[in-house]
Each structure stands twice: as structure tokens, then as C-alpha cells.
């Protein structure tokens, strides 16, 4: 789980693993590792989920964390345009460090769509750039399961 701070990475994991959503923002320090077994492409797959703290001026991400990574969700807060810019910047570093692996661009907080700062044109541009995009809401649960499954399938397909 990669992305800026407060984009909802931990909330997505919690919703996916525990089916829980907490309205209060709890910042992540370091890494929290979770596991969930899913059925993808007819196979039973154990997803080991590394919820890595969001980057900001206080904490930079250690590239060592990415060693052995099979794929990643690049999470963006749709209501904060800057998180897209930061995510794409982070993605460049990730690709440079570990090479291309399956990834899905997650536009989170779809329940706040009226406050979004990322418009359709930008989303179309991202899709054109080759991103698989999924709009999610950790609050409502919208597409949360789906986005993890999509990533699992993409990993299995490689």
C-alpha cells in the first residue's frame, strides 16, 4: 500500500481484512503487516499486505520495504490533488528501484466525489498512461474487495 499520508491506505486494508471503517484518522508509523486469503483466478492466494506509512516531510519511505514486493496499490485521495502528484512521483522511484510490477491506481474517498479535485480528464489521462484505475471508498466499502482482487489477479497473471 503506497501513497501519501491520509489517503486511506490503512482504512482500505482494515476494510478489506476486518470489514471495519473508523471515521477518525489514525496515522501509520512504520509498517503494519496483515494477511488475507482470497480466491483469485480459481486459486487460493494469501495476500501479505504491507501497509506502509504515507510519505510526508516527517517520514520518507525506505525502499528496502519494497524488496520482494509482488505488486502494489498506489493510493490517492481524490479530494486532494496533490496526493496524485506525490503518488506519481513516488511511483517513479518505485519503478526505478524494483522495476515494473503489477500495480493499480486507487482513487480513494469516492464517497466524497463532490469534493474531488481529480476530474474525468485527468483520470482519462492516467488511463491513457497505462494505469489500471479503481475508485474506492473505505468508508462505504465500494470496490475495496475488488481492487485487492484485481491486484491479485494481475500478480498471478505475471
Amino acid at each position, binding site marked *: 500500500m503506497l501513497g501519501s499520508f491520509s489517503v486511506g491506505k490503512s482504512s482500505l486494508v482494515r476494510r478489506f481484512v476486518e470489514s471495519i471503517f473508523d471515521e477518525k484518522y489514525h496515522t501509520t508509523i*512504520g509498517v503494519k*503487516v496483515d494477511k488475507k486469503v482470497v480466491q483469485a483466478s480459481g486459486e487460493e492466494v494469501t495476500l501479505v499486505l504491507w501497509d506502509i506509512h504515507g510519505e510526508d516531510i*516527517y517520514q520518507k519511505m525506505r525502499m528496502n520495504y519494497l524488496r520482494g514486493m509482488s505488486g502494489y496499490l498506489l493510493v490517492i485521495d481524490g479530494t486532494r490533488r496533490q496526493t496524485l502528484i506525490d503518488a506519481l512521483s513516488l511511483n517513479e522511484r518505485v519503478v526505478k528501484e524494483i522495476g515494473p510490477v503489477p500495480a493499480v491506481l486507487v482513487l480513494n474517498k469516492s464517497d466524497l466525489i463532490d469534493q474531488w479535485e481529480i476530474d474525468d480528464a485527468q483520470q482519462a489521462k492516467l488511463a491513457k498512461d497505462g494505469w489500471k484505475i479503481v475508485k474506492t471508498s473505505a468508508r462505504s466499502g465500494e470496490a475495496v474487495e475488488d481492487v485487492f482482487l484485481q491486484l491479485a489477479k494481475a500478480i498471478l497473471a505475471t
Partner: protein
Amino acid sequence: MASDSIFENFVSSQGYALFESTGADEFRPIGEWPPWCRTMWGAEAKDNNAIRLGEKSSFLDNFLYDAEEFWKSGKTGSVNSGNWIEADETGGSTPLEASALSLDGKHILIIRNLSSTFAEQQEWFQTARDSLLSHERLLREILKKEILLHCIVHDLSQPLSAMRGCFHLLSLEPLSPGLKKYVKSGEREAQRQEMMIRGILEAFSTDLAAQQTVNKEHTDAPDLAACAKQSVEAFETAFGDRGIKLRVDSAVKLSANWRVVGEASRLDRIFGNLLENSMRYSPKGSTVTIGVHDQGEFVLATVDDQGPGLPADVPQNQLFALFARGKSHAGKAGLGLYFCKITVERWGGTIGAETRAEGGSRFWFRLPRAGAEEKGDAASKSPEPEKHAATKHPAHAKATKGLHILVADDAELNRELVIELLERRGYTAVGVSDGKKALAALDHGHFDAVLMDEEMPHMTGVEATRAIREREKGGTKHQFIIGITGNAAFEDERRLLEAGMDAFLTKPVHMQKLYQTVELAAHKSTAPVTETSPHISVLPPTPAAPVLAPNLIVGAVANPTPTEYPAAESSTADLRAHLSQMTDGNEKLARSLVKTFLADAPKTFAQIRKAVAQKNAKKLGGAAHLLKGSIAIFGATKAVAAAQSLQNMGRSGHIRTAASALRALESEFKSLDRELRALYATDQPKKSAPRRAKSPAAARKSKPRKKP
């Protein structure tokens, strides 16, 4: 052995679990397993057997790769994993941190339970990130308010711009004296409205220096002696209550011409601040005297008291600093003298203080005479009429013939406009695109004045000016240099003047101010140059603008000048009127400017887009600056604001919000582009076949040049 046991128990009690690598990914615990370790890693821990930690924790599995690398390297010190949260089999979780080090050839792994400190750390990060989120929300709110403010100003100035343009067009027509009177009246009312708009901007401004930005139009130049007299009348009761006598020096001839650059109400505030200051430090029975002294092209005002002299605890150069106060703290917030300083300097003057030899202190300020710019009036009243006879008010005077001007500006559109306006005035002008070329041109020819853009590639105007002044050292020649800048803040003014410029204009260059300043150069070139050769700031009417810290610049407009940037977005009629005003009614030049803009500006915009995509702050600042200068000619307020915002981001290196600012610029730019194309389309000759309009440069090539 006993001490080993004590040590191990101590380590364990502090939340540490120590392991020694036994090879084959196994680790033997050193001492007893701490309880949290048993909870987390289960059965193997019970017998203190070796354990495969990597199999127990995927995070540790990852870190052990780094640990092995470290142990193999033979390096001293340790390698750290960073924090992680380890879930246990009971559903709980524990914050941990691992370190690898070598001791006596043994490979040691230390795992620390951070539970005792983690909550505090978590709280700290939580607070910090909550603050960041609040900051982001605040920025968005500021952006919204900025947009709202500029929309309001834009809407207010839009009809005004049209009116001013129409009045100007009317004034070019042959009118009866009666009609001329009405036109003048209309222009005057439009000017009043400008003042109101400026007032709105000032009300919104939060920066003190920006609040003190003043109009440099001197149509109602205040009389310094009259202001002094009024101040004495206003303060003599307060002084009297304290047993202090207040007077204007009897040597001051009140009937003489003491008109200075400035504005009466603020001049009163300056006197008021200086008098309040002197009242605080004057002993009972003493006298405070205001003097007004003729200093040729300047007028000096003094406030002398008989108090203890300047405070010893405050260096003189800090007396006028923001929030500067003596240890006695007899004053208020420390704003009064700061206000005096920024206001006086804004008007091209200087201010200072000294302890008088006879006791007490003298606060003084010196302002340029306003009468120096007005023909006849100054000549009849000035104590030194011969120094003023050569200068003329541009609105009434004929051009000073034979001036040869060097125009250094990287923006072709601005350069061509300025050259064309100068040539229409009867001057000759040469254009260059950067500071280096300006220096080369000065090496090979004489120029009465240099119009120097502040920001140019290869060598900026400031750098070129410094180089010119360096060359002049030890000689008698003084090249008159007029800075051209898109920034009209006080600090910008100071920067240009400190670099050695004699005057400056703000973009877009207004015709009359251009003539006024250039003709000032002609006058200055006849006067001896001294160390204290005065600096003249010639600003367009500039309202105060919000000044934001670099990281707060989201949509700020450094110079949103309704007067100079009327609403080009409104209609082709408004645009036509504005262009007519900018080009002094020269339609051919206006069309040519539009055509050049339509050809060049999209390229500059593409450079901005590329710079944003590449996160190249330097290129962004340069390209946005270039585009801003071009757009300003057409008075597109919002487009200028958007370009200014991007320029600020580029210059400050804070380009986090550049993408959104780019979208704002794109929208405004497209709007302007549409309007200009519409204007251009309607300006095509109707009866003859369409012809390609000449660029100003091409137009000049086809007509004979006047010799310098």
C-alpha cells in the same frame, strides 16, 4: 555468570529481546525470552530453542536480508529496521524495531518492543499530520478567497476599464471645449473609482508593507510645510498637556513651494508618528521644533526634540525596523517608525535619525519635490528654478528630442511595444534581449537611457546594472538606467534601486509614464551625478496586493493592477479600447501586437506546461514570467494573476500546486486567445484582400530610422 544474568534480565525488562545468529536463518535467544516475545512467537520460545525468526514475521524476514548484508560487510555500528507493527496470534499487535550489530564476532539481532514509547510517538505524528491536513485545507480556502477577491476586483474594474478606454478614444477626437470638460470629468470619476477598488484590495491585504503601497501619481502633491503646520495644530494641545512646546521653526517660509512626492493623509501620519515619538521622550518644559528645509530637488523635514537623544540600546539602523522598540518600551507596537520608513522610501525619499550635538534627537525625512515635474509652476516658485526648467510633465510637454534609448527585454512583445512608443515620441531606440547584449550595446554606442527588464536569460537586468555601475567606478559617466519589472512590491523596488538603477517602471509599461521617466533621464544626464543622486520610482497606480510566503502562494497576484490591467476577458470592444490606450491609438501597432502574441504566446505556454510536467521550477519561473509580461499588455487580469502565481511557484521552488495553477492559467489563456482572435478577425481589412500584418519589428525595418 551472575552479572551476565543481571544484564540479561535488565535488557529483557527494558523491552529488548536479544538473539544471536547461529546461521541457516536461525537465531538463539540470549537470556530469557521476554513475555511479549513468547506471546508473539509461540511454542518455540518456551524452551529457549533457536528459532527461524524470518518465518515468524514477514517484516523481519525482509529486514534479515539487510542484517545479513551488514554482518557480512564487517562494518561497525548497526543497521536499523524502522518501526513496524507485528500482529500476534491473539489478534493483538505490538510495535517493534529491530537492529543488527556485531559484538566480539557474534552476529547480534536486537528486537525492541516500543509499546512504552509508541503512543507518544504516534501522538506526535498524529498531531503533525493533522496540522498538515489543516494547512492544506487552509490553503484551499485561501485559494478560494483569492479567486473570489480577484473576481470582485475584476468585475469592478471591467466596466471602469471600458469607460477609461472610451474616454481616451473620445479625447483623441476633435471636441468642443464644453465636451472636453465632460470627458475630463468622466476620466476624473473613473480615477476615483480606481481609488475605491484599490481600497478594497488594501482592505483584504494582510501584509503591512503591501498595505502601504501608494499611488505615485502626484496630481495633488502635498505641501510639506503646510502638513507640518497642520500637524503642529493637531498635536499642540497634547504636547501642552505634558508641558512641552510644539512649533514650526520660524525660519520656514510657509508661502514657498514645498510640494513633495507623496500623499497628504499619509504625510500627516508620518508627522504624527514622529511627533508622538518625540512627545514620549521630551521632558517637561522642553520644545519640539519642526523644520522644513530646501535641498534643491528634495525637501527635508526635521523634528527636533530636547530629550535624552537616541536610545543607546537600539542601533540606529534598527530604529525604523518592524516592531523595533527601546528597552523602555515607551512606544506602542513598534510600527510607527516602520510605517514612516516604508512610506517615505516608497515615495523615493529617505529617513533617518541622529542625536543632536546640542542635545536631544533629530528625526528627519527627505522627499523628492513634486514641483520638479511640472512645467511653469516649479519654475516660478522653486528656490532653484534652473534645476527644474528642463523637466516637463509628460501630459503637457513635447518630447525631448534626440534621445537614444536602449531597450533590454527578453519578451519580444514588450520590447517591440516600448520601442514603438518611444519612436512615436520621436526618439530612436535599439532593442536587445538580455543583459549581456545590453552591455555589448553600451560598449559600442551612447544611449541617453537604458530601459532594463529585471528578469532576462543569461544576464538579468539587475546583474547587468551592477556590471554597468562597476564599470563606471572611478569615472564621471553615469548611465541612466530605468528598470522594468513585473513586480511592484516594496522589496522589489528596493532591490532594483540597490542594484544601481535610477528609476523603474512596472509592466505593462504605460505610455505616459514611459515618456515621463525617459525624459527624466534626459534631465538627469545634464545634471552632475553625485553619490546621493536621487532615485525616482515611477509606478503605475498600484493597489496593495496580498504578499504570501512562498509555500502559501496558491493564487496570489503580486501586482493585480485594475488600472493597468483592465478586463481583456470582457469583450472585444473593451479589449480594443484597452489596446488603443496602451498604444496611444495606434491601431496598426495594436493589431501587430495581437498577431505577435498569438504567434508566440502559445509556445511560451507550452514551455510552462512542459516545466510543470517535468517539475522544473527554474524553467517554470522563467516561462511564466515571460508569458505574464506578454499577457499584461492586453490587460487580462486573471491570466496575469495565474501566470504570476506560477512564476512565484517557480521562483520559490514550491511547485506542489503548480498543476492546478496551470489549469487556471490555461483557462484564462484560452479565453484571452479567443478574445484576441475575435478582435483580430474583426480588424481584418474588409474591402481589400487579407494581408499579413507586419510585426512591429518588420514595420520598423521598412521605415527610415532617425539618427541618434
